[in-house]
């Protein structure tokens, strides 16, 4: 049995160990991974840049802590860019653990905008968080009629009509676009109802494994932008010129992918050798 055949029959625990070692080493190393910007990520950036100060965007934070590593950097980069440009943000969270994610992001971003842009973000004037309601399909449909149907008050129980920035804001027609950051299949509801039924311009940030499934909607124009996983987040961080967690994580992701690719290649060489010898069909 040669080396390739041996590796192709490697115990999975060795794979785990090697992968863990690569992750730990690349986390400790400090250098910037070069990132190429894809058109689908640039279009989200261009959209935010094109909005005049004072206009509204809707940020849908529909992810749970499990996908935080990929999703949070997108949320932070986009919201910081929007608030630095003096846009007003309406936030919702339609996944069960989404409110915790959204609130954490909002509080952090309010601080970072003050630090980086010197701007004091005031809750209720620049940003509002409506909170969570179950059954995303129903909630997305009802917000198309009026935000108050599903959210008569915000996450902190303040009636929507007594919040400054919500006065005169009825539904998707009053926001310039929706940017959805999600790790759930709820994205289908947003595409079908918010865009399909109410024609709201929609961009999505998805986990890496989901991204390929939503390219058809990008090509059909149902979504105007798509950010896929850690790469999408890193591209956005590069566009806003604020390297963060995603660009750091890309260093780890690139090298773990290289290791996995090497394993696949070696495994296949071993497989082909075994097949030539007639050991496997």
């Amino acid at each position, binding site marked *: 049995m040669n080396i390739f055949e041996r590796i192709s029959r*490697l115990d*999975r625990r060795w*794979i*785990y160990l090697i*992968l*863990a070692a690569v992750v730990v080493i690349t986390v400790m190393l400090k250098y910037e*991974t*070069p*990132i*190429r910007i*894809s058109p689908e990520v640039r279009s989200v950036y261009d959209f935010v840049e094109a909005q005049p100060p004072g206009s509204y965007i809707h940020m849908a934070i529909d992810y*749970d*802590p*499990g*996908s*935080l*590593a990929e999703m949070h950097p997108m949320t932070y980069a986009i919201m910081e860019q929007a608030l630095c440009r003096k846009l007003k943000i309406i936030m919702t969270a339609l996944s069960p*653990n989404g*409110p*915790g994610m959204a*609130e*954490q992001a909002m509080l952090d971003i309010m601080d970072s905008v003050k630090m980086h842009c010197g701007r004091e973000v005031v809750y209720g004037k620049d940003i509002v968080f409506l909170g969570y*309601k*179950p*059954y995303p399909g*129903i*909630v997305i*449909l*009802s917000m198309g*009629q*009026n935000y108050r*149907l*599903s959210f008569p008050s915000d*996450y*902190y*129980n303040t009636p929507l009509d007594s919040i400054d920035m919500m006065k005169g804001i009825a539904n998707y027609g009053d926001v310039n676009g929706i940017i959805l950051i999600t790790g759930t299949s709820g994205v289908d509801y947003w595409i079908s109802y918010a865009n399909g*039924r109410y024609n709201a311009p929609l961009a999505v940030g998805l986990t890496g494994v989901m991204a*390929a*499934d939503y*390219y*058809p909607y990008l*090509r059909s124009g149902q979504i105007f932008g798509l950010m896929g996983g850690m*790469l999408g987040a890193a591209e956005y961080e590069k566009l806003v010129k604020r390297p963060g967690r995603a660009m750091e994580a*890309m260093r780890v992701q*690139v090298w*773990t*992918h*290289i*290791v*996995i*690719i090497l*394993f*696949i290649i070696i*495994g*296949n060489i071993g*497989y*082909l050798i075994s097949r030539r010898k007639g050991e496997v069909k």
Partner: protein
Amino acid sequence: MKKEIPLLIVFVSGLFMAVQFFVPHSTSEKIYEFVMEWTIIIGIFALALGIWSLIRVSVNRIRRRTPNWQYSIVILAGMFGMVIFGLSFLGGVRSYMFRHFFDYVMIPLHATMFSLLAFFIASAAFRAFRARTALATVLLLSALILMLRFNPYLGPLGDQDAALAAWILNVPNLAAKRAIIIGIGLGIVATALKVILGIERGYMGSD
């Protein structure tokens, strides 16, 4: 009558919602808003039912001492604990305990579970991605091209790989996904029609 009335309600509601979509009149929109409120209320009842079901199953497991019954105690303690910490007179969702349990228990637990997937996927890719047939080889090559698309160490090859990856996503992937989506869409329409016309009665329980 036990069957006819629910069937009639479903028929009228289904038909109304289908027609309403194409009627942009203010009255139609008002009725739609009204129905939406109903849907939300019904949804809340379903949530209450889910919580009740979870409590019942967990309590039964503890009472009968089924294998790993101790986990049910954790489930109940977690659920009631977060509800209590989230009560408004204890500070609500901004309370110290609520936020700390979420930030330092919930988030790390979820993140850990999801992170472990990376190791399983690596192991699965190593074993499953074998060029056994022509189709498996195409799948293998596509996966490699997509994985390499954001590798910055490929030099000029990287740009070509990125272009090839974009082509895979936008042409073969798009064609296959569209076929699936259209198929699913037609299936949904067919099922909806069967429900509206009373052919599909699964929602009424056993017939």
